[in-house]
């Protein structure tokens, strides 16, 4: 998909032409993303030139799939994608809001208003809206035991915009439990400690949360057990392969015997390391039925695997770097970089370790762990594009839970905030402003309505009816959102529709900053120039 093509070498356009071109670009982008929004939006199936399929209802993913050439559109897209990077959501809303703000501006500028004055109004409105958001948000107390219900509501609100209801609800529990699992008091939430694995499987409903870890590889020795209970887990980053480069001496040997001797000496060093692991195994496993699993970040060559297999040890090599951290969080123990001072304290524990084979793909499940602080969401789907779409949704869900816990507040959804903020701007803020800048405040206020309007449009409702009903309720002092089935106002609180505070905040902030640069109507060339040199 490509939007309007603009020759970047175009001559300097005069101010008004440049402005209209900017506005058109914003509108074009808005049109493409508009249908994404909300639980009634349209999912997009993109089929590439070679038949690769991509499914998405996510603005961020969609923007990356579009080959955008218009510089203004690129700029808006970058703003929106940056939005996603910082808060994990809100790409579509950002694009819609910027587009709408540009449309509103067009109207006023056509009527002869100077962009500068308009922008002053925007600036005032933005500050007021941010202040209003502080008052409007619903605080959530995140003590030792976070309110799981509110976390679920936020996650559900996000997931239901990406997946069908039953699946969204199933994933809601999964993502909330996953984030609660990795949460550590007094520390930020590192979502990387939730591993996301996928498997091809007939049914997507088999997606589940594994308390423990799923690795995408298995042992590489035929004699190692495929299933073991009560396992000690050794997490290590130690080379267990014969490595020529450890010899410092030169490469050329004067005789074959000398070469053999060097090789043998080197081999002995590796064997020593393996033996130390076996010693530890014998120490902790003697006199009981417990098992021993080594998960190593570096390589393990066949002779070492042989030794380990003979000692009854299960060994995995080349584990992901991140899994070193995850394993320790899931199973306990510590990751060791050397086998020199191995003690039983280094070891973690898992009740069950087993291998699952799917064609040439192997998975190792490390489950039944005690008190895990890392976990795996195992996504199953019938084909790659479905898996990819579920994966995107899971990431968004995880982010929304994390945001809620970090924000310690949420914002009423279903368009309630936007309508409330708009009424606040029009009824209260506008009269405090002097002169024409009032119109800027009004334009900003009306632009906020793009969210409920689009939600209504995507549900096949009459947007004007909806807006009148909603603003009417708000003027009567009732904070309401839109029921997407009936078009009637609803109380989002009752329905459990909540959005992230940080996402909303970010949308208001980011959308506006870039717009100033665009709307002041600089010659287009200026925008192009500022592109290459400002890399932030």
């Amino acid at each position: 998909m490509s939007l309007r093509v603009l020759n970047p070498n175009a001559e300097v356009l005069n101010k008004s032409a440049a402005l209209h071109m900017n506005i058109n670009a914003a509108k074009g982008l808005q049109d493409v993303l508009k249908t994404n929004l909300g639980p009634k939006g349209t999912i997009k199936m993109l089929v590439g030139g070679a038949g690769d399929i991509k499914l998405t209802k996510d603005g961020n993913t969609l923007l990356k799939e579009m080959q955008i050439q218009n510089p203004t559109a690129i700029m808006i897209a970058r703003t929106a994608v940056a939005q996603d990077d910082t808060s994990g959501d809100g790409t579509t809303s950002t694009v819609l809001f910027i587009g709408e703000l540009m449309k509103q501006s067009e109207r006023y500028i056509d009527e002869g208003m100077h962009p500068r004055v308009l922008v002053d109004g925007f600036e005032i409105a933005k500050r007021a809206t941010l202040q209003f958001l502080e008052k409007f948000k619903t605080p959530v107390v995140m003590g030792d035991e976070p309110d799981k219900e509110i976390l679920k509501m936020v996650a559900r609100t996000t997931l239901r915009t990406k997946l069908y209801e039953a699946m969204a609800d199933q994933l809601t529990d999964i993502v909330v439990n996953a984030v609660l699992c990795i949460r550590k008091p007094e520390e930020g939430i590192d979502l990387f400690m939730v591993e996301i694995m996928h498997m091809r499987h007939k049914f997507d409903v088999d997606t589940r949360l594994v308390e423990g870890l799923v690795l995408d590889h298995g042992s590489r020795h035929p004699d190692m057990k495929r299933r073991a209970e009560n396992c000690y887990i050794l997490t290590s980053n130690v080379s267990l392969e014969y490595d020529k480069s450890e010899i410092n001496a030169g490469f050329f040997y004067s005789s074959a015997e000398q070469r053999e001797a060097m090789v043998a000496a080197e081999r002995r060093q590796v064997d020593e390391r393996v033996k130390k692991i076996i010693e530890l195994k014998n120490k902790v496993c003697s006199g009981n039925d417990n098992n021993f699993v080594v998960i190593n970040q570096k390589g393990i060559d066949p002779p070492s695997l042989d030794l380990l297999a003979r000692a009854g040890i299960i060994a995995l090599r080349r584990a992901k770097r991140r899994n070193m951290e995850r394993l320790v969080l899931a199973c306990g123990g510590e990751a060791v970089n050397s086998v020199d001072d191995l003690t039983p304290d280094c070891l973690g524990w898992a009740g069950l370790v087993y291998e699952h084979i799917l064609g040439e793909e192997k998975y190792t499940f490390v489950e039944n762990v005690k008190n895990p602080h890392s976990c795996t969401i195992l996504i199953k789907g019938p084909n790659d594009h479905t898996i990819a779409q579920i994966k995107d949704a899971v990431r968004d869900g995880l982010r929304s839970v994390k945001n809620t816990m970090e924000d310690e507040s949420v914002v009423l959804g279903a368009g309630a905030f936007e309508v409330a903020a708009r009424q606040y701007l029009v009824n209260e803020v506008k009269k405090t402003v002097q002169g024409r800048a009032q119109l800027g405040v009004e334009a900003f206020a009306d632009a906020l309505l793009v969210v409920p309007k689009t939600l209504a449009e995507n549900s096949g409702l009459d947007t004007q009816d909806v807006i009148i009903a909603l603003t009417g309720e708000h003027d009567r002092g009732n904070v309401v959102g839109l029921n997407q089935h009936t078009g009637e106002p609803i109380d989002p609180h009752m329905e459990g529709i909540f959005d992230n505070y940080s996402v909303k905040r970010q949308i208001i902030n980011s959308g506006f900053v870039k717009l100033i640069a665009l709307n002041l109507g600089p010659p287009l060339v200026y925008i192009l120039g500022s592109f290459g040199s400002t890399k932030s």
Partner: protein
Amino acid sequence: MREIVTIQVGGFANFIGSHFWNFQDELLGLAGDPNGDPIFKNQHLDMDVLYRTGETLQGIATYTPRLVSVNFQGSLGSMSSHGTLYDHNPPVPSHVVTWPGNVSTHLSEPHKKNLFLQSLYEEEQENLAPMDGINSGKNDCESEIQDKDIVESLENGVQFWTDFSKVHYHPQSLYELNGLWMDAQDFNNYGIGMDVFSEGLRGEEMNERLRFFVEECDHIQGIQFVVDDSGGFSSVAADFLENIADEYTNTPILLYTVRGPESYMNRRSRRQTMASDLHDAISFSRLSSFCKLIVPIGLPLLGRSKVSSYLCLEDEKPYHCSAVYAAALHSISLPFRMETLGPAMDSCYVSGAVDVYGLIQMLAGQARQNIVATLDAVMPAPSLTGKQVEQSLLGSLHPFTPEIAEDVEDLQEVESLTIHGAFGSGGYRASVSEVEDTVHAAYENATTKPLFSHLSVAHCPLPIPLPFPSIFGNLVGQHGELLGSPVMGGRPSRGSLDVHSIPMAARLRSTTAILPFLENRLGNLQRFGIARGASGTELLRSWGFAKDELEDTAERLSKMIMTLDPHSQSSSDSD
């Protein structure tokens, strides 16, 4: 067995890779073909070094390159990024299982398969269907006619590297940089690629692809890394290499930096030239710091260089130029996979096996720790005609590395030479020992000879697969022998239909001839980047390089020069 994992990053690197894997595929095919040339029957090359065995979900065995290829989104043409073997590409479904609401389908214009890819597809379908004796005979006749059309269509219409690829790739192999579109912007300098690796999950995903192949290796001997260093892919590769060096500490990396002639053509204005010069300096310095041996490849005027004495190359066609470089890379890679019977015994088919680590130690690990090697090759290699070998074979090796000095005398030169499929004086295929003896004799008589020379010989020539471009001149015979007079009646350029195999020779050299290459980079960096009031400081800052970083870079370059030429310091200081 000692596995190699190959990584290809960027446009031209993937063009070279495509030819490289076509050669391997051809070798595999010819070894298994009952009617094939017997010379390909006993190659004594262990293909498992480069290939992996696998199995689809349906239980069908697969044999695919151990490869990670990185490129723009949309650069795969009509090939699916999942490859073709594992059936990851279901037909476009009519509904979406995860979404009950509206679905809008956006179909891109499907890339049409060219004649070559169509014929591959048909062939495969036929192989799947039970063979009918009479029919297959008839088809042979038809395909004979088609081959000409195929060659012709490739000559005129290669756009993507996949257009001439006959290899099946593993679904993990082909990685498109999501959101980075081909031709979307000028992706032509180091700065523009700076954040590409770290943005989103790209870096993570690339590392995962590589780990998939490395985990399978029982004992990896090294990583063969080819990068198109003419633009933004340099920095993508540098970031990738940094991760690899960190993760696989003891795995040697052999790095080829490649570029096509067309990358030299956009240096029109002074500003463009300066940007390119700075890019070259930064790119080389960064890339060389993450590998054990770096080989710069890519002549600005390949078609008019001495390399092309017997070739008709069109510089503006990456399809042509990449074929030549791929042939040389193939030759260099032969010693890594020669089957050895024992340390002292050499078979009569191959000799001089050495692994990646050994080669790097030989060239870069000796007294002079010079990690930059030059590549010389001759295509096709002339026959070993007795005493004149020195002129005919050794003299015909010409550099593929740009900006190097000719006829330098370097007493500490180290080289590794590979010759395969060479002809003896009587027009018959020379035996391995014959090649060895002749080359040794040639060096005995030579006026200048390297301090150390390693020779690898293979009996088996380079096979020319059908999708190879028509780049041979009319003095090249069917088996790559050089003819006394032009072939009559033919077209001026000959391709895979006329030439079935060629002898090749290629060598890597650690030599002071590389000094101009290094000095140019250092000089440009100092002149445009570091000197007071330099015109390129602004540009470099926009790429994210501060002054102290540039000084470190310059120091690294001058150290590289110092290892080769200890007397150079005074001259570089006065610059």
